[in-house]
């Protein structure tokens, strides 16, 4: 299959993820959407790796997965902490860091 198909799929997934991040207010869903975006990136990396040969792209994809795992751990930790303190689980309410 030509690389364009992979790239088109990757872009589609990325836009879905970005749209979710922009529109949703639940941090849990936002994390899911961020995960979608990261995996869209991974797909593009692996596809280009297949095109150019070698292993650099795959290694990068593995590293992105590690980063994504870390990010989810921290993100979920924050969400659990919010839940325990009976704070609203809504990113629009969490704006104490405004200037």
């Amino acid at each position, binding site marked *: 299959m030509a690389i364009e198909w992979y790239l088109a799929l990757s872009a589609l997934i990325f836009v879905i993820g970005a749209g979710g*991040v*922009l529109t949703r207010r639940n941090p849990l869903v936002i994390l899911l959407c961020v995960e979608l975006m990261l995996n869209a990136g991974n797909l593009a990396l692996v596809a280009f790796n297949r095109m150019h040969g070698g292993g650099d792209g795959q290694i990068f994809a593995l590293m992105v997965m590690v980063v994504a795992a870390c990010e989810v751990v921290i993100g979920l930790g924050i969400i659990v902490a919010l839940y325990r303190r009976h704070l609203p689980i809504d990113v629009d309410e*969490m704006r104490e860091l405004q*200037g």
Partner: protein
Amino acid sequence: MSATTLAWLALALPLAGAIVTALGFRFWRGRAAGYVGTAALFGSFACAVGAFLALQGEPAEGRQLVSALWDYAATAGLDAELSILVDPLSILMLLVVTGVSALIHLYAVAYMGGDRGYTRFFSYLNFFVFSMVLLVLAGNFLVLIIGWAFVGAASYLLISFWYRRATATAAGIKAFVINVLGDVGLVLGAYFLFSGTGTLDFLTTFERAPEVFTENDGDLVAGCILLLVGAFAKSAQVPLHTWLPDAMEGPTPVSALIHAATMVTAGVYLIARMHPLFELAPTAGTVGAIIGCATLLIAATTAMAQTDLKRVIAYSTMSQIGYMVMAVSAGAYVAGLFHLMTHAFFKALLFMAAGSVIAAMAGNQNMDQMGGFRRAMPFTFGCFVVGGLALAGVPPFSGFFSKDEILAYTAERGGIFLVLVAVGYVAAFLTAVYTFRMIFRTFLGEPVPEARELEQGHLYHPENPTNPASGEIEDTEVGFPGPEHHVAEQSPPMKVAMGTLALLAIVGGFLQIPTVTHLLDDFLEPTFAESIYFEALSPSDAATFVGLGLGALIGLAGIATAWLVWVREPGTAAKVRQRLRPAYALFLNKWWFDELIGAVIVRPARWLGSFALTAFERLFVQGTLVGGTSGIVRAGSAAVRAAQSGFLRFYVALFLGGMVAFTIWFLLQA
């Protein structure tokens, strides 16, 4: 030793004295500091005499020696050296300065004996003499300016010596401010000359000046007038004279040394030293002569109405320096310097005698409250009369010869100078009147209680010491006059100093008896050999003797007038005062110079200051500069802060939008 080595020693000794007395202030007991300071001055005078003898040993054309210790700045085109010029003029000044200073130090050893700031006083006094010697020995403009400024600073320190007296500190500040004005004039004048000739050295300047400047060249006249501003400020000439009468707040030895004999004659020395330049710029010379003449008349008339003993002598000093400035500006250099020398003798003597009277009055300087001290203080009376006769110009006292030489030589210039000489004769009459008014009112008449007490051999001490100027109660701790005071009759050092000066005031004039002796002429010739006036101005014998006779007559007439008015018929003064009320008010208020300067300079300056504070500072500095800067920062930060809304999705949208924009831009570029 060579003349220059001895001159360096004469310069170094007072400095050493100042440092030693200052550093040992905990160590000195009793009058030790006074003796150390006086010894330094006598040593300096001995060196000056040695330098004089060594210089006389040189051939006449070799009597201008320059000696440099080191370079201040080794820059191409600038000869800034620490150099001294030893020639007859500087040696004459050196002899007068160190000689009179040594005697005044000796006087002060006793006079200041009861003061708590004794060591400090002698340290300041030695420092003053060092500065003055530096000024007269300076071989270039740089050293001259340094000495000039040091002298002003020393004068400030000594006028404000009793630093807890508000009147004394105010007088010190006034003197310092006016002197700094003169310093600025001197520096700017030196700059004008330096920019023309390219050298700071005196002798080189005089050599190059005729090549660089044409006669009455604009730059040269400006430079000379600015030098005159410096000279006027230091020599208390109109309109920069108002500090000198106020300076009488200082201790009497200070008045005798600084404000009569040495510092105030610096302006006369400066004009004489710069004579090649003033001869190239006759306009500046004429300006100097006119100002000198105006000063001598204004000061003499003011002295007629004053009642403060020391202020009368101060005004007479101004008047006599007016004669000297007139003489040296008109080209009668030797006459001016001759009067400078004799004036140093008799004026220091008058101040010392006045100091003795003031001590007997326990600090009171008001003549209205004095009288009848003749029997209580015969020695002081004698000295005062000798000084007064010399000042009034009665033959054969020294002032007679020097004053008449000034008038005779200045008259030789003809034209406008004849008017100046006529004014000089009028002022000479006034001089005799006010001098003997002072003597008659202080020493004759009914003895005041203080004089009676002294006749019993007991010195008057007030119950509460007060400031005679303001009447405030004082203590006798440091910063105020001490508890003890000394009069010449009971104190040998004062008697020796006054006796020596009285002798000099009598015989000092014999150096230059017209047609008989001309020692000073011969001595000063190497300095003034190139001068166009030195040979040309020589009054005929007939003119000289007419002048001498007129001078003697005027002096005696003045004394007779004073005797008639204040001794024979004591009510006359009040009657004359009634009849000439406007003139009396003019003289009593010192020609309203303080008020004039206040209205023309001080009030506008104060108005400008308050304008700057309220309008400029508040609107421009606070409002525009400070407020503007902080306003810009505040507005910028407000704009940046607005972006920090705290909405996570807004940030993400911005981020994505930016990314998309970048991507599109790169795609378009490709």
